[in-house]
């Protein structure tokens, strides 16, 4: 609790299983307030799961998830929905409501959570859309937008209620260099201008390292290492070095677990 001023999110000894597969095994992660924290790791290591745990869309098997000092998994349904109003999340696909226009998508959180007048809502929506550079696209429907624009609209929607915590789920996947650059700039800019705390989950090393103040590397259900990008780049732990340098083989083997190659080939004849 004493840490709640320095750390907005505090994951303590999180264990999470999906079916029989252990995704997290006693993970401790602390997200410093006001900073951009990157969470990196190879594909399929449960990075997205981590965000869903913080947003309480999933519940851990054990451990505590403190957001602003509240243990999220123990909240009731009503309190949980109240707590989520302070969180914004940018989904991989953008997840815009397909039956609403860009304007209405951004206005959605305002309409359901506030009693603002139509004029106020209009001003706020235009403000948010201006921040992501899509004020001119407000009358379009989501299926008329490109992938990058969708993600920017989704970003405008996520910050509509001025959350304290923004979570980005793989924001750079499938983006062309230009929209990637736009997103990188936006994440940094919003974080600093609005006094947010940002969590960026990604496996895009260069982009994440370029905006993050602090990095966590996860894999095999564990935190492999954490530190500033420079510290991790120069880490002497082999797993972290392999990931940070992008080496194809190393502690994470190139080959999926398999029997010996030669005996596997010969095995067919024995059959």
């Amino acid at each position: 609790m004493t840490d709640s001023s320095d750390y907005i999110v505090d994951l303590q000894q999180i264990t999470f299983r999906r079916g029989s597969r252990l995704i997290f095994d006693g993970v401790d992660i602390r997200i410093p307030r006001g900073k951009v924290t990157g969470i990196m790791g190879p594909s399929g290591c449960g990075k997205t799961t981590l965000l869903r745990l913080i947003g309480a869309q999933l519940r851990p098997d054990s451990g505590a998830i403190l957001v602003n000092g509240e243990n999220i998994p123990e909240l009731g349904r009503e309190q949980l929905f109240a707590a989520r109003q302070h969180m914004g999340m940018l989904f991989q696909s953008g997840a815009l409501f397909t039956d609403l226009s860009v304007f209405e998508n951004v206005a959605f959180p305002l309409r359901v959570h506030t009693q603002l007048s139509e004029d106020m809502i209009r001003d706020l929506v235009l403000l948010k859309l201006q921040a992501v550079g899509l004020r001119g696209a407000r009358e379009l429907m989501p299926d008329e937008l490109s992938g990058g624009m969708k993600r920017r609209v989704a970003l405008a929607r996520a910050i509509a209620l001025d959350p304290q915590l923004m979570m980005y789920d793989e924001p750079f996947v499938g983006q062309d260099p230009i929209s990637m650059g736009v997103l990188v700039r936006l994440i940094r800019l919003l974080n600093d201008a609005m006094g947010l705390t940002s969590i960026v989950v990604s496996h895009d090393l260069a982009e994440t390292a370029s905006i993050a103040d602090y990095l966590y590397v996860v894999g095999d259900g564990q935190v492999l290492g954490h530190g500033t990008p420079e510290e991790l780049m120069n880490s002497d732990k082999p797993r972290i070095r392999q990931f940070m340098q992008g080496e194809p083989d190393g502690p994470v083997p190139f080959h999926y677990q398999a029997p010996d190659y030669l005996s596997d080939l010969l095995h067919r004849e024995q059959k």
Partner: protein
Amino acid sequence: MSVMSRIALLGRAGLDTISALGRSGVFLFNALLGRTRFGNSFTLLLKQLYAVGVLSLAIIIVSGLFIGMVLALQGYNILVGYGSEQAVGQMVALTLLRELGPVVTALLFAGRAGSALTAEIGLMKATEQLSSMEMIGVDPLKYVIAPRLWAGFISMPLLSMIFCVVGIWGGALVAVDWLGVYSGSYWSNMQNSVEFFDDVLNGVVKAVVFAFVVTWIAVFQGYDCEPTSEGISRATTRTVVYASLSVLGLDFILTALMF
């Protein structure tokens, strides 16, 4: 496969079914109970009433008309052999009000509106729209699911009554205008034998029960589906199959209780 593992498999399937039933019960409970805080919940319901009810109107009217006409034709051919063709109105009306009205409407409703509901909700799930709604702090059970459930509950009994009226009118078209049954005896025979409380209201009660079951199944299958394209297509199929079977099974039970 050994006998034991087969038995274990059967047991697991049974447990899965029971847990799905439990999940759907909790789902319904959470969606319908508790208050909604959205100022626009009426508009949401309105949109769904349009999508679920008004858009199903065409298929209901056309099917009702044809089923009534066929009933009259078949009934006439049989009754004329006993010289009681004037009872054809009574036959058409009772058949429609007690059985075919609610049952056929429910089956058509499952095919037309139910499958659309499942696919729509499944797609919203697959594209993370439901998750992002949760993260905005809006409960999708209240915002997406509840209006669809209510729209189904309200629309289907109305559709069933429209179906009956159109069917009886179609029967009159064939019997009176085409086959020459005296129109006075068509209607008066009908009025003599149809009891408002026993026949009409029991039919409406059936329609209400079917509406509840079909909509529940459709919406739950969408919400519970695996968020992939195969998952959605499987869920849509399940909606039509489960809903149709439940309607036919329940119809037997309700008929045994009522008539």
